[in-house]
């Protein structure tokens, strides 16, 4: 079956090349712009992630255009809202690739949506940027995943908090692929650092009553809780944890708390003392970042949402792609990929972001921070972290013609662990 599938992809890329012919003519006619499409949820349950991502994408494109555009052309950005619904992801992906003939598509929040549209972009030979932090493992020649992956953040966070708080760790995680894989990495690094993993518990994404678990944590008496909880409903965990007085006795560390700006959805006293790890935080104290935050707030007002990693990376992802186009001197897929893999880097709000050519992921800075008064105090900065997890399975330099998602069924199935 695997063979058949590959064959299908080959045949389809052949057809795509044929079909691209009229496309090229069409493109030549409207050659005065470069086409970029963004497909991100701006309504439905995922809009807490999607809306800030769209805001920063728009901002990046406007800035690039204001600075004279790319290769002397303006970027024509189209944004589609799939409304947290997978059928609209494929609908808009096909539209972007086959009708808009996009030069690049920045799209996708959940891994499910990314996998659904990645096949379409492969088929139509469309360059694809995925700017969300995720479980890692995508290995695809025409896809670039710029977000952080668990090995990058968890690897730093776990030893730090174990040193600070103790060796007994209790893991709570969202019951889906990302939660499971993140929990696996946490377990690994706890073991590697000589700690003890007391228990791991998984929660469906729509559960918002955590009472019994909090009692279990009280019974287990760990030194710290590692959270890989995700989404609006899971915000309840931190609140109920604090309500039971636990936040003062057993601290929480997380690599997921904050991607949906959870730290503003709970009060200061509930969140104080939590430690997180991300590759971007709004509080990063560099001139580039301060300037970026200032421009963002000027554009979207003082009530603008907190800029989290997803939002910042969407901005940086657009610039990273633009660097690739500049270097290639064209928007041709092969040329841009070649240019990006040289590798291209971009000094953005999060620091230096560089393409890792073997995996098409990003080498990036990782920041450890403590939450105080709904704001993060940065504790540690780890420069230029490699996407170590994806590197274990993926080498696009050796084997360029790949389009796989190695961690589709967890780390064990991928031969790690």
């Amino acid at each position: 079956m695997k063979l058949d599938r590959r064959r299908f992809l080959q045949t389809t890329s052949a057809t795509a090349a044929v079909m691209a012919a009229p496309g090229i003519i069409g493109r030549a006619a409207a050659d005065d712009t470069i086409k970029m499409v963004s497909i991100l949820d701006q309504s439905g349950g995922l809009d807490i992630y999607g809306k800030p991502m769209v805001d920063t994408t728009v901002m990046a494109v406007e800035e690039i255009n204001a600075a004279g555009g790319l290769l002397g052309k303006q970027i024509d950005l189209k944004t589609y809202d799939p409304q947290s619904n997978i059928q609209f992801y494929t609908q808009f992906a096909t539209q972007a690739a086959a009708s808009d003939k996009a030069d690049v598509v920045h799209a996708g929040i959940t891994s499910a949506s990314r996998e659904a549209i990645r096949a379409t972009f492969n088929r139509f030979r469309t360059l694809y940027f995925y700017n969300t932090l995720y479980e890692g493992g995508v290995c695809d020649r025409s896809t670039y995943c710029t977000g952080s992956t668990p090995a990058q953040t968890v690897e730093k966070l776990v030893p730090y908090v174990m040193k600070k708080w103790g060796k007994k760790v209790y893991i709570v995680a969202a019951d889906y692929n990302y939660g499971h894989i993140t929990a696996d990495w946490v377990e690994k690094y706890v073991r590697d650092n000589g700690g003890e993993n007391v228990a791991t518990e998984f929660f469906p994404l729509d559960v918002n009553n955590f009472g019994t678990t909090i009692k279990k944590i009280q019974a287990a008496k760990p030194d710290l809780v590692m959270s890989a909880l995700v989404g609006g409903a899971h915000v309840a965990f931190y609140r109920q944890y604090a309500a039971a007085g636990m936040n003062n006795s057993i601290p929480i560390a997380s690599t997921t708390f904050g991607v949906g700006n959870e730290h503003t959805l709970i009060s200061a006293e509930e969140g104080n003392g939590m430690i997180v790890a991300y590759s971007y935080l709004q509080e990063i104290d560099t001139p580039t970042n301060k300037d970026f935050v200032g421009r963002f707030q000027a554009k979207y007002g003082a009530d603008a949402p907190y800029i989290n990693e997803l939002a910042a990376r969407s901005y940086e992802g657009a610039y990273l792609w633009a660097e690739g186009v500049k270097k290639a001197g064209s928007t041709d897929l092969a040329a841009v990929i070649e240019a990006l893999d040289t590798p291209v880097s971009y000094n953005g709000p999060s620091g230096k972001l560089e393409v890792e050519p073997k995996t098409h992921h990003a080498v990036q800075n990782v920041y450890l921070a403590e939450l105080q008064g709904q704001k993060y105090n940065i504790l540690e900065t780890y420069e230029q972290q490699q996407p170590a997890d994806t590197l274990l399975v993926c080498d696009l330099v050796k084997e360029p013609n790949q389009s796989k998602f190695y961690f589709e069924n967890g780390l064990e199935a991928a031969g790690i662990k």
Partner: protein
Amino acid sequence: MIRSRETRWSLFAAAVGVVFLFAAPQVFELFTIINLTTVLALAILALSLALVWGYGGILCFGQTMFFGLGAYAYTIAAINIGETTAPIFIAIFVAAAFAAILGYFIFYGRVSDVYLAVITLTVTLIFYSLLRSTSGPEYKIGNALLGGFNGVTSPPLNIPGDPSNVLYPEDMFYVAMAALILAYLFCVWLTQTHFGRVMVAIRENELRAELLGYDIRLYKLALFAIGGGIAGMAGVLFANGIGRVTPDIFNLYNTALTIIWVIVGGRGTLIGPVLGAIALFYLTSGLGTQASINNNLVLGIILIVFVLLVPRGILPGVIGIWDRAQSRSKLLRSEKRMRRRRAPRRPEQEAANDG
């Protein structure tokens, strides 16, 4: 006895479908044709609920469960078998068989009405909860890993007997459109049979149907299973349209949406819900290309205005306007005829009827 008008219109609708089948690829852009597979899959799902609910009166709030089961069964079977012809039938069978089992559980327990709605909804949500937590490697059926929340990649259909010869997404349109036309004609035929009439009778009055000697439990179960099978087939097409199956198929939003399509299209018709599903899909996706106003807001307002202005759904609304003009004159004629015949013989009855 045979409702000739309905038959005529149904055949007309099917003919329009056939014309569309051949004309669409010439008229529309490639991406529209590719996306139509998904839209048509949803339309067939709407058709299955139109049959089960609109004709059979069974308010199934979980029609997507059979749709999802079909999609998953197809994908898992295709991964294991290495070709896709048998998996199509496996998918339809699995969906229909599960509907039959659930139907036995429901109808032989005399569960009906809103209670039935909740049972079907709940079973759907059970699938949703369970499938989301199958991300580990231990959850596999044969060679197919279930993939949890992220779902499984679905192999594309191949030409029967030639597993290496897979269909392009744009070719899938022909399969999906043909499936819709055939499923529609099958449903039309079914409603014209004795079985179909009894189903309508059961919808109208369960007790009377029983008193005539019809085992309504069995009839409902049969209709439920048929509807499940059709939904399962739609699931196969959906898996092909998206290229992937995910547990989201089973979520509350999607299962409620199926109900909404049928209401918008009009209950008691078969083509109405099909149009309802297509219309709402394109309305929603059309809204998704703009970003100035929140999509939920616009869609919600449209639905509310719709329910106030077109209370019976699109198709019955149109038919109603058409009929009122037609039947008014007809009624007048038949009343005159009746009066002529009866008046001399039974004047007192006329009086009684008037009173």
